[in-house]
């Protein structure tokens, strides 16, 4: 049974409390800021596995010169959360070691904080402070390659600044937040049911993961209990989302090394999975199936059909890894070491491919899944990320069969609290939503954390020493969401 402890603390006690929790095996899962009557309320949500533990630190900082002590020295993700809060709300982290702007676009005027209630309309485009101060790499033969945010293909916007010598990458800086939509602000004041379509659109390929995390958070806030069968069906949908995305990316990885026949074959399998999605929920991307307290399915997927698809995928994967050139391109490319993966707080298959045994399906369960070993590899390279996903496809299919066969017992929910946290292992990694309901039952504040927020900093680390033409392959092996990160 997951119990979320809430501690109200003074800002100056924050580092001590955080250090204690991090020492106890917790990780910082979410930092949320919002305007209250007397100042900015900040929430630091820490989570730990085995058993499922969640601990919230709440503090209040005044509107006048809002500032908090920085946790960047204790946890790398904390430093990024603090910069996000500073750029969006204007709460300054004191003594931050890397205080550069994170979310803030270069056309946002200094002192304009878009998520505040009185922010007003977005400013017109301009260049008040000039270009972003990229760290320049100097030396014989060193030069810069700027890529994006507009790319040659139809992909999401991000700017990558490569500092290279010849083809070797010395340093890579990724600038994101070109699709910052202020989606968390759009939740405010909506009825709970009206928040669901927004949650489904946080990141188009993770419609169900975000919708489910949102529903779990709202259910905890309202004290709604969900039938075990419904909870099991939700878990089935979550696996269906994992399946179609993993299959897509296995094909895309083959395509990025120009092995197009496997890409075409993976595309065929993907289409079959999307059609199953449509049969099960009425929507190819699994939208509008999950809602607060319930789940509506048109039919159940057929485990035999899924197993047949699983055999197909296994054959495609074996063909890819059996191909000498493909295996050569994957092996040893862009290694993310276990220590780096842990320090950066990576999640999902990126973490598991670097040897970290993390999976919210086991660590923060809604269902008692019994023995559930996540697929873990130790290589940390493109090959390991490929293999983890191949294994997860097989595991997902077996899990679906098990869930349909006999719904396991649910983990009981707690009573109404006014606030709630939903944790879901989406296909990319652990998604966390936190909602706060107002006195009238509408949404007062929603904070969303997509695993991409944690995983993006790992990409430049993994790419150090790689060569420029391998970047698209490596980027695809991470396949991080821009929309989910930028919100």
């Amino acid at each position, binding site marked *: 049974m997951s119990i979320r402890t809430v501690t109200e603390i003074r800002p100056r006690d924050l580092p001590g409390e955080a250090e204690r929790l991090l020492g106890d095996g917790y990780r910082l899962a979410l930092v949320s800021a919002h305007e209250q009557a007397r100042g900015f309320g900040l929430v630091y949500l820490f989570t730990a596995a085995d058993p499922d533990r969640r601990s919230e630190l709440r503090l209040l900082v005044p509107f006048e010169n809002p500032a908090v002590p920085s946790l960047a020295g204790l946890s790398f993700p904390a430093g990024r959360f603090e910069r996000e809060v500073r750029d969006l709300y204007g709460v300054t982290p004191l003594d931050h070691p890397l205080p550069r702007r994170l979310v803030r676009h270069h056309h946002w005027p200094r002192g304009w904080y878009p998520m505040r209630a009185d922010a007003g309309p977005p400013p017109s485009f301009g260049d008040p402070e000039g270009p972003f101060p990229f760290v320049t790499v100097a030396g014989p033969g060193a*030069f*810069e*390659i*700027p*890529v994006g945010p507009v*790319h*040659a*293909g*139809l992909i999401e916007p991000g700017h990558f600044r490569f500092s290279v010598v010849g*083809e070797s990458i010395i340093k890579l800086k990724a600038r994101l937040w070109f699709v910052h939509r202020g989606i968390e602000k759009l939740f405010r004041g909506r009825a709970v049911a009206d928040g669901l379509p927004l949650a489904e659109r946080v990141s188009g390929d993770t419609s169900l993961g975000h919708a489910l995390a949102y529903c779990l958070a709202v259910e905890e806030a309202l004290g709604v209990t969900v039938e075990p069968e419904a909870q099991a069906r939700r878990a089935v949908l979550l696996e269906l989302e994992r399946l179609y995305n993993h299959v897509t990316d296995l094909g895309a990885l*083959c395509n*990025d*090394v*120009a*092995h*197009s*026949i496997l*890409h*075409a*074959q993976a595309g*065929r399998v993907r289409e079959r999975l999307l059609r199953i999605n449509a049969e099960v929920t009425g929507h190819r991307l699994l939208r509008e199936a999950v809602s607060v307290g319930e789940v509506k399915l048109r039919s159940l997927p057929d485990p035999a059909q899924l197993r047949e698809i699983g055999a197909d995928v296994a054959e495609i994967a074996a063909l890819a890894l059996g*191909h000498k*050139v*493909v295996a*050569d*391109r994957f092996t040893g490319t862009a290694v993310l070491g276990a220590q780096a993966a842990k320090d950066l707080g990576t999640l999902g298959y990126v973490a598991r491919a670097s040897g970290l045994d993390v999976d919210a399906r086991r660590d923060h369960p809604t269902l008692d899944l019994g023995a559930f070993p996540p697929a873990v590899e130790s290589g940390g390279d493109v090959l390991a990320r490929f293999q983890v996903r191949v294994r997860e496809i097989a595991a997902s299919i077996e899990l679906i069969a098990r869930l349909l066969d006999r719904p396991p017992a649910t983990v009981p929910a707690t009573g109404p609290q006014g606030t709630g946290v939903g944790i879901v292992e989406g296909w990319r990694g652990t998604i966390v939503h936190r909602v706060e309901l107002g006195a009238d039952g509408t949404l007062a504040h929603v904070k969303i954390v997509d695993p991409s927020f944690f995983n993006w900093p790992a990409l430049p680390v993994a790419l150090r020493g790689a*060569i*420029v*033409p*391998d*970047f*698209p*392959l490596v980027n695809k092996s991470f396949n991080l969401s821009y929309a989910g990160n930028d919100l």
Partner: protein
Amino acid sequence: MTGVAGVVLQVLLVAVGSPLLVGVMRQVRARLEGRAGAGLWQPWRDLRKLMRKQAITPAGTGWVFRAAPMVLAGTALVVAAVVPLVTTESPLDGVADLFAVTALLALGSVALALAGLDTGTAFGGMGASREVTVLALVEPTILVSVFALSIPAGSTNLGELVAAAEANWLSLLSPVTLLAAVALAIVSIAESGRIPVDNPATHLELTMIHEAMILEYAGPDLALIEWASAMRLTLLLGLLAGLFAPWGIATAGAGALGLLVAAIVVVVKVTVLGVALAAGEVFMAKLRLFRIPELLAGSFLMALLAVAASYFLV
């Protein structure tokens, strides 16, 4: 007179047929991958679409950028007039030298690399740098393997080489030809930017070689480059076919019927080679960039062995 007619015929064949060859190759790939494909005429439709667009050049580029497509297409057309595809009896026989042909093709590549540099963008420079790296490894292989082939014939004149081989086709059955053929086939694939060296279908700007150089081109200029690239591919395949399977090429004194037969034969040969190349590509993946020099060094070694063999086995 048949010489002039033959040359006109082969230039027309190359100019009109090369986009079709690209269309055939794409269609073969599509069908093998289980896709419907866009049809044989799609490259021509693309060219027509591009030709109708406004000509546009990026700010800051100079005459190098504007001249490069013309140079590329021009050299390809000259090579089309010179190499023995339909007839060995070209009026331009004096320049139908293998070294001259290689140099003409290299001139086109260099013009494009300079144009890539002229744009001043990171991609233009990156593409040019990679292209020149490949070029520097391709050129020696072509020269050495040609040298190996020219030793039995005693000439580097293409017409004479082909005529000699056609007259005495048993001479083709030697390790010299085999080694030179493999070496030339590998460098032809590299030179025309096909898998496993380059991927003509990619949209990933960071992996590109040829495509990165021409990223800034649009409209008619791009059409010219696409057309010239198709012609270069056709010429390289035609040259391979001519050197190692010379049957059917019209020699001096062939009549109109001979030319017609030669034209059909060359179309068949180039199509067969193109289909084989496309089918092979389906089962290949693109090499890591730093493995490409290894592949090309291997082909150079084969060319060198061909030269050695030609001395030992004569």
